[in-house]
Each structure stands twice: as structure tokens, then as C-alpha cells.
């Protein structure tokens, strides 16, 4: 206990500042992304999107939050209340917590865990638990269908996601995200998406499935099971689930940037901004997030069997093959590994 207190004594300000910054970031990302989602949808479909609240509709998220805060939380009579109410919390925790290991700029990382990648994999799998809790706790047919699909989908795509990170770990020789980013310095030809292109592809697809985005939105499937695991939620519980979904969308983008697209590293050395390199990180993350939204309005939803085939028969074998290619190349050219 003594040592715990002494650590807090050393850096109390840093702790509270970082907690505030992470929470501020997650909540604002969720708010901005709900807005961006509808604006992008609007422009892709040749309409305006939300444009009534504030200049160009920019205050729409604020209005949404007020509306959801004052809305009644209706829950089914026969729902299992503890599980029903714990589900949004279980979904929000991984979306917020995983941000603390991401290096935003050379000197800005909240906790540089030496098992960072493993921590990311472990903490995001709590999200699957949240989906099952939401669907099972509601005790409703649509919810249960959505939860079962969600469980099958999330655990199936977790396997290619875990395997796709192995190439990066082998090349870096470390699980720390700070070291992963440092190893990619010197220009965009050193970023891992070039030697690990198939793995990047797999990580991107598996990430898309892990955050339940179109074309992998079977757990929600609003046109067939009317919202899936979240059909019984309303008001703030629903808002928290949406916030968790958008925050994990941003998280997956940030992780693919950190692991494969150089993190805060500028594309060429001459554009190095020093401590302001977080601008590069933000720019790349925003671009990846935009591609997620672009896909949403371009691709139809997969069928359940197609989903399982893609995960187990294409992505997993592709990962294993590229794992061996990477291992073999590192054996022949030892200079590849640092």
C-alpha cells in the first residue's frame, strides 16, 4: 500500500491530467464521430445531413446529448436488471481504457506498458462480453439473436486480429507500442504496412468486424433484427452504448495507425514537428476513420455464413502464411529485425 501511495505522491498532477484528457478525448471523439458519421452519409448520398442546430449543424451532438439525458430509460419488466445495466459499462470500459497505451506524440503516452499489444488485445475482448450481457440481460428475442451473432462474430474475428499483430511484434522485437512507433521512423517506406501488407489488410478487416461496422453489422442488423442486442435500450444506456461503439471505431483506427502506419512519425523526415507530431497522428487516424465511414455507405451487409467463411477460411490462413513468410525472410535477412 505504501508504494502505491508513493507513486501517486510523485505524479498526482500527471495522473489526474491524463485521466481527464483521456476521458475528454473519448467522449468528444464519440460526439464528433456521431456528427461526422451523419455528415459523411449526407454528402455521400448527395444531401446535406444535419444542418439545423448551430452553424452548419455543428452543435447537433450537443443537442443529442441533452435529448438523451432527459429521455426516459425504458427497460423490459422481465429483464435481468443488473446485467442489463452493467452491459453499457462493460462496453464502455475497453473503448476508453485502451487509449492509455497509445503514444500520441514522442513525449505523450499515459502508460507505456511493456506488454502494450497484449493489453490491447485483452482489453478489447471485454467488448464481446458487453454485447452478450446486453442481449442476454434484455431477455428479448431480437436481443438474444443479436447477442448470439455478435458473440460468434467477435470471437471469430479476434483470432485473425491477434495473429495479424504477430508480424509487427517479430519485426520490432517488443510488445511496447512506443517502441513499435520508434522502429518505424525515418520516412513512410519504413512503416510496417509495406512489409506487412497482408497483415495490415487482415487487421483492417478484423478491426471492422470487431467494431461491428457495415459490412459486419450482423449483431445490429437494423433491417432484419431491428437493432439486435441494443433493441431494448433507450435514453442514457443507449447513448453510452453508441458512445462506446464510436470510441472503439476511433480506437481501431488509432491502433492501425500506430501499428502499421507509423503512429506519430511524419511521412518524411523534413516534416518532423517535434512535440507537435500528434498532428500527424490525428491526421492519419482521421483518414482511416473516414475510410471506415466510406465503406459503410458503399458495401452491403454480409450473410452469416459468408462472414464465418471470410474469417476462418481466408483471414486466418492468410495470417499464418504471412507469419511464415515474415519468419523465413527474417531468417534469411537478419537485418530486418531490430
Amino acid at each position: 500500500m505504501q508504494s502505491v501511495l508513493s507513486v501517486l505522491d510523485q505524479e498526482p498532477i500527471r495522473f489526474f491530467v491524463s485521466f481527464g484528457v483521456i476521458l475528454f478525448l473519448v467522449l468528444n471523439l464519440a460526439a464528433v464521430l456521431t456528427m461526422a458519421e451523419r455528415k459523411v452519409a449526407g454528402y455521400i448520398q448527395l444531401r446535406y445531413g444535419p444542418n439545423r442546430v448551430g452553424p452548419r449543424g455543428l452543435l447537433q451532438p450537443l443537442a443529442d446529448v441533452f435529448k438523451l439525458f432527459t429521455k426516459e430509460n425504458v427497460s423490459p419488466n422481465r429483464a435481468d436488471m443488473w446485467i442489463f445495466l452493467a452491459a453499457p459499462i462493460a462496453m464502455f470500459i475497453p473503448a476508453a481504457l485502451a487509449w492509455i497505451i497509445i503514444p500520441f506524440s514522442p513525449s505523450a503516452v499515459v502508460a507505456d506498458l511493456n506488454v502494450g499489444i497484449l493489453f490491447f488485445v485483452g482489453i478489447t475482448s471485454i467488448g464481446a462480453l458487453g454485447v452478450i450481457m446486453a442481449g442476454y440481460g434484455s431477455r428479448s428475442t431480437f436481443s438474444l439473436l443479436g447477442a448470439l451473432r455478435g458473440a460468434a462474430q467477435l470471437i471469430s474475428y479476434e483470432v485473425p486480429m491477434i495473429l495479424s499483430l504477430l508480424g509487427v511484434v517479430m519485426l520490432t522485437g517488443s510488445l511496447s507500442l512506443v517502441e513499435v512507433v520508434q522502429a518505424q521512423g525515418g520516412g513512410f517506406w519504413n512503416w510496417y504496412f509495406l512489409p506487412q501488407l497482408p497483415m495490415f489488410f487482415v487487421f483492417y478487416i478484423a478491426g471492422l468486424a470487431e467494431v461491428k461496422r457495415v459490412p459486419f453489422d450482423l449483431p445490429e442488423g437494423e433491417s432484419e433484427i431491428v437493432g439486435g442486442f441494443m433493441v431494448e435500450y433507450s435514453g442514457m444506456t443507449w447513448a453510452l452504448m453508441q458512445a462506446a461503439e464510436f470510441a472503439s471505431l476511433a480506437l481501431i483506427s488509432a491502433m492501425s495507425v500506430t501499428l502499421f502506419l507509423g503512429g506519430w512519425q511524419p511521412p518524411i523526415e523534413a516534416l518532423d514537428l517535434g512535440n507537435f507530431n500528434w498532428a500527424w497522428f490525428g491526421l492519419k487516424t482521421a483518414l482511416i476513420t473516414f475510410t471506415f465511414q466510406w465503406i459503410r455507405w458503399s458495401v452491403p451487409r454480409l450473410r452469416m455464413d459468408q462472414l464465418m467463411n471470410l474469417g476462418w477460411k481466408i483471414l486466418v490462413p492468410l495470417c499464418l502464411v504471412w507469419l511464415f513468410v515474415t519468419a523465413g525472410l527474417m531468417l534469411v535477412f537478419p537485418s530486418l529485425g531490430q
Partner: protein
Amino acid sequence: MTLGLIQQGPGYGAAYLYVGIFLLLVSGFVATVLVIARLIAPSRSSNTKGQIYETGEATVTDTWRPFPVRYYVFALLFLIFDVEAAFLYPWAVVYSELGVYGFVEMTIFVLILVVGLAYAWKKGALKWV
């Protein structure tokens, strides 16, 4: 318990301390938001509102009932590959120092699992119908 935290220097333990306290604070924050929303929002429950949503039809059976066995098959496959990954990560970290020995050993390890995956594929366990 706390000895483990200080032995490797305060920097090392502090990182995990951050994770633990963050976990508690985030869950506390979300729970607080739910409580505040409960205080602000109106609450007029009625029997009709308490019905589960099923596009206007009355539910005839309880929804907590057995579900198809294929979900368990995928859960088992997931478990196997998840444990495999737990062995692959430490190997990947030190791979550049292991050389040919590490490569051959991991080839054998992964091949055994690939045979298992191929068997499941052949048996139709990956087929979703």
C-alpha cells in the same frame, strides 16, 4: 502484493497502477452518468412500456432457451487459437535472437494446429448452416 510493484522500479509499477486506477475511475464515471440520467430523466413506468419489443407481436415463449450447437464449435475453435496466440507472442518478441531453432520449433507447433484447422474444415465444422 505491493512488493511486486516496486521491485522493478517505480516507472514499471506505475504503468500498471495507472491501468488499475483508470479501470476503476472509468467504471465509476459511467455508473455516475447512469445515476445522473436516472435523476434527471422522467420515470413513468407502465405495463405496456415494460413489454419486450417484438414488432407488435406478443412473445409466446421465454427467450432464455437453448441455442444451436454450432456456436459452441466456433467457441472451441476460438479457444484453441487463442491459446496458440498466447504461446506465439513470447516467441515473436524474441524471434530475431532465436534463429533457425526458433523457426523450426514454431513451424512444428503451428503445423499441428493447422492440421487441426484443416480437419475441422474437412469435417464441415466451419460450415454455417
